[in-house]
């Protein structure tokens, strides 16, 4: 962040309040390029769409809590908290030990994430850019991607997204990301339909 021309206070503000790694990675080049704000926010929204799905799941655990608390829990719940929590409590209903479990996981995650981010911001000038350490971020996102590939349909949709994103890379304003999402979602829905037609007993 610091290296891309964002000042130190703004870099710290970004890591403290945005608190979403993949959205930050996607948003940063847009900020540097001076993209229109709506494109910046729409891209972050799309990258964060997975959290919309998680939130529907979270609601089954925390739906009985007051709204402010629900939103705070949701804001602190990142991918790892979701995956671990859903594995620890496969039954999607409220249980007494869920809140302590959540807070333990969320607090540790928040501290280590912010600590590592601040360290990165402070040390940014000590690490030469040509080492290409920024690519570690791509590897992290690739790992999350792999963990989302659950069946043939998701593999095909991912292939469509990759192809379209590269093929339309020349579009301005990073619109290749939006076109790739649209194409992959369309492909996914088509696959759902054809697979269902192929297996009529599933109706």
């Amino acid at each position, binding site marked *: 962040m610091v290296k891309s021309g964002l000042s130190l206070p703004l870099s710290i503000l970004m890591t403290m309040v945005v608190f979403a790694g993949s959205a930050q990675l996607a948003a940063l080049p847009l900020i540097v390029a001076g993209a229109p704000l709506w494109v910046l926010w729409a891209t972050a929204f799309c990258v964060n769409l997975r959290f919309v799905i998680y939130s529907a799941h979270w609601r089954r655990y925390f739906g009985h809590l007051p709204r402010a608390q629900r939103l705070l829990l949701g804001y602190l719940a990142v991918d790892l908290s979701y995956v671990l929590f859903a594995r620890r409590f496969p039954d999607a209903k409220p249980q007494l030990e869920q809140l302590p479990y959540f807070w333990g996981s969320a607090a540790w995650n928040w501290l280590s994430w912010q600590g590592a981010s601040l360290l990165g911001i402070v040390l940014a000038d000590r690490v030469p850019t040509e080492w290409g350490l920024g690519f570690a971020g791509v590897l992290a996102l690739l790992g999350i991607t792999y963990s989302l590939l659950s069946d043939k349909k998701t593999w095909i949709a991912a292939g469509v997204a990759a192809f379209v994103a590269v093929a339309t890379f020349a579009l301005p304003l990073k619109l290749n990301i939006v076109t790739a999402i649209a194409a992959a979602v369309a492909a996914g*829905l088509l696959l759902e339909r054809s697979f269902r037609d192929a297996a009529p007993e599933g109706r």
Partner: protein
Amino acid sequence: MIPAWYATVGIAGLAVVTVITRGFFLFSERELELPAWAVQGLRYAPLAALVAVIAPEIVLTNGALLSTWQDARIWAVLVGTAYFWWRRGILGMIVTGTAVLLALKIGLGW
């Protein structure tokens, strides 16, 4: 230099986007039901967004497809990928991939 007001407003908006997406179905006091096709479609959106962000970062250099095998990124991705499917660990994938990247970049000067 990026205008400070632009970056500040942009970052504040990103924070709002984070709150909105993470709390999307936690906000309403009433129960919400989505149409089935929307639920199915949503399943693919996060995957697509991630792939769309990273695919060009891996196979493009200044907007052109890779034309050489002497690119540290390919080997970092291959090794990281192999590690992931072997151990199912994202952290180990980042560590092994980055190690390969640094070895090729600093060791061989790619």
